[in-house]
């Protein structure tokens, strides 16, 4: 589904990604774990075209999308829920969801998808006319995921959905991520510092350190790995 091959990404002269390769198969939940500043967000932004890599390639469903403008990449079936959620602060919940479906014209299907996200997150339905910037952190995260779903992606990139949320809300959101994967068949690429939670729902994982992938394995193997345990699982 998604194949990232040896990408190098820079911010000015600072190199953030030093040759990252990874692969996500159709229908999988894959997680990428790493400490602060490891380059997790940069990896997602490179894939989405916001910070295009200086070298290397990103292949989505057999098509080379390296260097394509971000809005084109969205049309190819990939959406991202960025770090910090990035809700349009002055738009209402409904307007935010409407922006998620910006490229779509299939009105009937859109209505059904709206029903679906309201079913996933009933609280959003109650708050549909509230201004996005005034939602709580958890609600914003729900809205961010819903907005991404409104684009009807075949692959969904999620950047630290657990960030700053209470454990109970995190549980709920991770439950929904699994549900989206099962019910919609959406492939999930999840970036997390909360390695515990992420590895629990993922099929496989990658460990990122200073812009390099240092480890990859099945989730169960990573959870059993001594180094991973010590560095990321806090046990």
């Amino acid at each position: 589904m998604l194949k990232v091959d040896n990408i190098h990404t820079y911010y000015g002269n600072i190199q953030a990604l030093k040759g990252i390769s990874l692969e996500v198969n159709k229908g999988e939940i894959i997680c990428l774990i790493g400490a602060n500043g490891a380059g997790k967000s940069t990896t997602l932004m490179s894939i989405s075209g916001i910070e295009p890599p200086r070298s290397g390639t990103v292949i989505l469903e057999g098509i080379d999308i390296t260097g394509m403008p971000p809005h084109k990449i969205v049309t190819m079936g990939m959406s991202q829920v960025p770090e910090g959620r990035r809700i349009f602060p002055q738009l209402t919940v409904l307007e935010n969801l409407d922006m998620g479906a910006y490229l779509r014209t299939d009105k009937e299907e859109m209505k059904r998808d709206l029903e679906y996200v309201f079913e996933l997150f009933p609280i959003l339905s109650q708050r549909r006319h509230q201004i996005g910037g005034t939602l709580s952190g958890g609600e914003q995260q729900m809205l961010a995921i819903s907005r991404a779903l409104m684009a009807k992606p075949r692959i969904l990139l999620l950047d630290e959905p657990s960030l700053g949320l209470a454990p109970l809300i995190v549980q709920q959101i991770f439950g929904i991520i699994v549900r989206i994967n099962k019910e919609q068949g959406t492939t999930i690429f999840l970036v997390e510092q909360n390695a515990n939670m992420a590895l629990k729902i993922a099929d496989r994982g990658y460990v990122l350190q200073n812009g390099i992938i240092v480890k990859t394995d099945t989730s169960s193997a990573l959870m059993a790995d001594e180094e991973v345990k010590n560095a990321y699982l806090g046990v």
Partner: protein
Amino acid sequence: MKYFLQLVLAGLTKGSIYALIALGYTMVYGIIKLINFAHGEIYMIGAFTALIIGGVLQITTGLPPVTILFISLAAAIFFSAGYGVTMENIAYKPLRKAPRLTALISAIGMSLVLQNYVLLAQTSDFLPFRSMIPNFSFLIPGKSLVTTTQLVIMITTVVVMIFLTILIKFTRMGKAMRATSQDKVMAQLVGIDINKVITFTFAIGSATAAIGGVLIANHMGQINFYIGFLAGIKAFVAAVLGGIGSIPGAVLGSFVLGMAESFGAGYISSAYEDAFAFVILIIILIIKPSGLMGRNEIEKV
């Protein structure tokens, strides 16, 4: 009383023109956080386009003045939008990722280039502009408080405001503009081509400035290459006054400024007319630094 009302009308007229220019400043700022210093020049180019096209049509055809007015207005909108978009492409787009100061300097450069380009192509003299706005028969010159031109300026401004409000609130491009102004990265992640949005914003801002330019030329009866400079600065002041980035703010700021200038000139001294703008600006920014309608971002992280 009559004098007072005349000052109000003069203030509304001035405010209308400022608003037509300030809209472009505030929209461009809202989208790319650039103070487009050359925006006043776009207004000036609108006036010159109408002068040239209108002049040619007056000489070569027997068309009624109203028809000529509409044709030259359309031409002015078209050319100004073209200049605005081209300017964005050559002077600002390559600097999208550069520090903001760099783009600002590029804008000042663009302003000088356009002024001197018109100076060379025309002359530095004021050129007479024959008004193409016919008199409304229900207004008796010398008796009525308001002149036809004033009325046309105010009505046009209201129509432009309504049009813009509908555009921004209800159209797809309007939604894209709002999203882009709130979060450029996120806008791209939902599939918005922000380059298109930016181009469109420059086109619309330039078009409204051109309308202002054509109206003021008809009102004043003469133009030269320099008219965009002071008008541009005043409109910029109005936009800051209202809270730069806010469209209703730009309109409100423009009318506050127009009124202040009109009353300042009428009751205090017309010699200081141009200084009132800055006095008002300083007072309001001391009281409310974000401008009259500027918001302190409601953004929860």
